[in-house]
């Protein structure tokens, strides 16, 4: 019974250790950490496992005036070797119950083999608890196209990545959860103290995808035989997305933080239609005979003007080879957040 009582009393300490995220021990010896709550107010005798002892036995050392270390540990039952106390210091930035709005002015793909994505994103998070938040992240890629490596394969080797592998996503949103398992501090070049937390997030969502049908042409100056032309894209529809990521949040104050994250946007890509037209539709458009199905947006092949026959021919070639792939777009998200 005494053991059970003791376990009950230890439970709060165990729980706090599991979720404790503060760091940067104030004492020279990290092995003697100090619990913040107990530092602020001495523990009641009934709150400590040593409560069964007489008060004079558990009386901590008297704080000497001006002695920071001793003053901070007042009330902590350090005399009992069986008691584990945790955490360290006041956490100056709290999140629980607050919202966090983040603008990522830069997002960029770092694993762009066949595609490249650059854009911007935003995030709204509600910190349900100190370490857990719900978040939604919309993003827009102003550059979502095949990579120069893919162009090189086409031009030099007459090789092209499969349609599903070269799919680009230009607009999307994910919603999910973010956890903050680690909170810490670092010193920047001796004097400046910076607080940070490690964030991990995961979510699901959807994104609009497209396929580059005709690469852009940029002519050299003086090349009279060459004509500049923009890229032509075919719409490949809405795809289900998954997202996992992690990064750092560096606090610049109570309300502002910098965020640097890496997120892997994962989606399955199967290209069976381009601009809503399947292979049968595209074949009809290619031959100029018959009427495509109702879902086929044949006018989409007119943009940019003058490339319609080429776009239809490329689409027929791509759709004739059924392809599917699981794509991982690993992107860096760099931004600033406002916590309110």
């Amino acid at each position, binding site marked *: 019974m005494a053991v059970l009582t003791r376990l009950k009393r230890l439970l709060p300490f165990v729980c*706090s*250790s*599991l*979720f*404790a*995220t*503060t*760091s*940067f*021990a*104030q004492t*020279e010896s*990290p092995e003697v950490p100090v619990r913040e709550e107990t530092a602020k107010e001495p523990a009641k005798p009934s709150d400590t496992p040593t409560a069964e002892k007489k008060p004079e036995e558990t009386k901590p050392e008297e*704080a000497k*005036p*001006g002695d*920071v270390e001793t*003053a*901070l540990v007042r009330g902590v039952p350090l005399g009992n070797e069986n008691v584990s106390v*945790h*955490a*360290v210091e006041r956490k100056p930035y709290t999140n629980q119950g607050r919202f966090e709005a983040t603008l990522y002015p830069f997002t960029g793909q*770092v*694993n*762009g*083999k066949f595609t490249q994505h650059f854009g911007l994103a935003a995030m709204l998070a509600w910190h349900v608890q100190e370490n857990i938040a719900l978040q939604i992240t919309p993003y827009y890629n102003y550059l979502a196209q095949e990579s120069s*490596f893919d162009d*090189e*394969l086409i*031009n*030099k*080797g*007459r*090789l092209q990545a499969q349609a599903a592998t070269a799919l680009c996503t230009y607009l999307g949103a994910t919603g999910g959860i973010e956890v903050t398992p*680690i*909170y*810490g*501090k*670092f*010193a*920047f*070049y*001796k*004097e*400046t*103290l910076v607080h*940070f937390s*490690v964030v991990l997030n995961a979510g699901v969502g959807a994104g609009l995808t497209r396929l580059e049908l005709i690469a852009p042409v940029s002519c050299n100056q003086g090349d009279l035989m060459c004509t500049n032309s923009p890229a032509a894209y075919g719409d490949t529809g809405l795809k289900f997305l998954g997202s996992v990521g992690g990064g750092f949040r560096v606090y610049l104050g109570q309300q502002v933080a910098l965020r640097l994250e890496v997120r892997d946007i994962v989606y399955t890509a199967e290209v069976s239609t381009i601009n809503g037209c399947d292979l049968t539709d595209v074949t009809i458009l290619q031959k100029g005979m018959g009427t495509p199905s109702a879902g086929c947006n044949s006018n989409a092949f007119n943009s940019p003007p003058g490339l319609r026959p080429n776009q239809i021919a490329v689409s027929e070639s791509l759709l004739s080879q059924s392809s599917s792939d699981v794509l991982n777009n690993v992107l860096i998200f760099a931004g600033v957040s406002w916590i309110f």
Partner: protein
Amino acid sequence: MVISIASSVTARAAEVENEAVRNREFTVEKRVEVGANFGLTILNMLTSHIDASADVAYNFTEAWALVLGGGYAFGSHTSVANDVFREVGSKDPVPPCPTPTPPGCVGGSGALSNAADFANLWMMQEHAELNLRWSPIYGKLNLAGELPVHFQVFITAGGGAADFQFYSPVFCLQRGMVFDPDDPNNNDTFTETSSQAQIQKSLSDTTNNTGAKIQGCVFPLSENTWKPVINFGGGLRVFITKNIAIKLEFRDYIFPDQYFININRTAIGGGALQGQPGFDPSFPATPNLSPSQVNAYCTRTGNCQNAPNAGFTNLVFFNGGLQWLF
């Protein structure tokens, strides 16, 4: 009295807070360190590398150190590169016969008769570099509320030299029939990195290799040279004890690329095994030529041209390692 104690404590705490390095348990100033590292490239387009390296460093201050490092990178071609080798090799540059077909003419498709080589195909091997390392950030965090972890964040930059190997999928010295690697009856296929002796042995071994043969490149151009390399990167090292730390970093090695364009594939090696005209016997038959040797050949014959704006190649490694501080 209570108030005076409290204010004193607050004042002292504020001082402590400003002295951010107060809790720097692991110091490196004026210490020598040695490290062993293992790394791999993280964005593999045509080549991929696995690197083993070692370094020795001297920490002038807590923040600045000079690092001398070197190692060997094991380079290989990616599956995309192997597809390029196969596809380009299978394209016959010999022009089709005119109409009407002259007697004895064996024409080809004329595909990629004038071709350009691919960028970023040099594979790094031995390398050595001298770097300056700046570690402006020293931090601590607690894992699961129990384990205090001390770490340093650093950036580094420097320069050196490396030995590079190149195999060309386009610049084929001798075209011919090669084993179809997709045919399961070919047990002894060879790749572009195989030696000429291995290739000849495989081609003459008709016991183990009974599968189909396809048009391909028997002897691709291979080059070897040393190049200057600059590198920069950043990462963190986590102190395990006062003498041991774990290092994790990203490092980008940048070096000048070099390849050939306007390659006359027919003149250089097309149809040699078929006895067709066009094979240039004056080309040095030794493997691992230097770029200057090949360039001299190109200038002399006009069968190829050094790419004027080849740019630079980036090899981005993710490295992990152990460091010992003395």
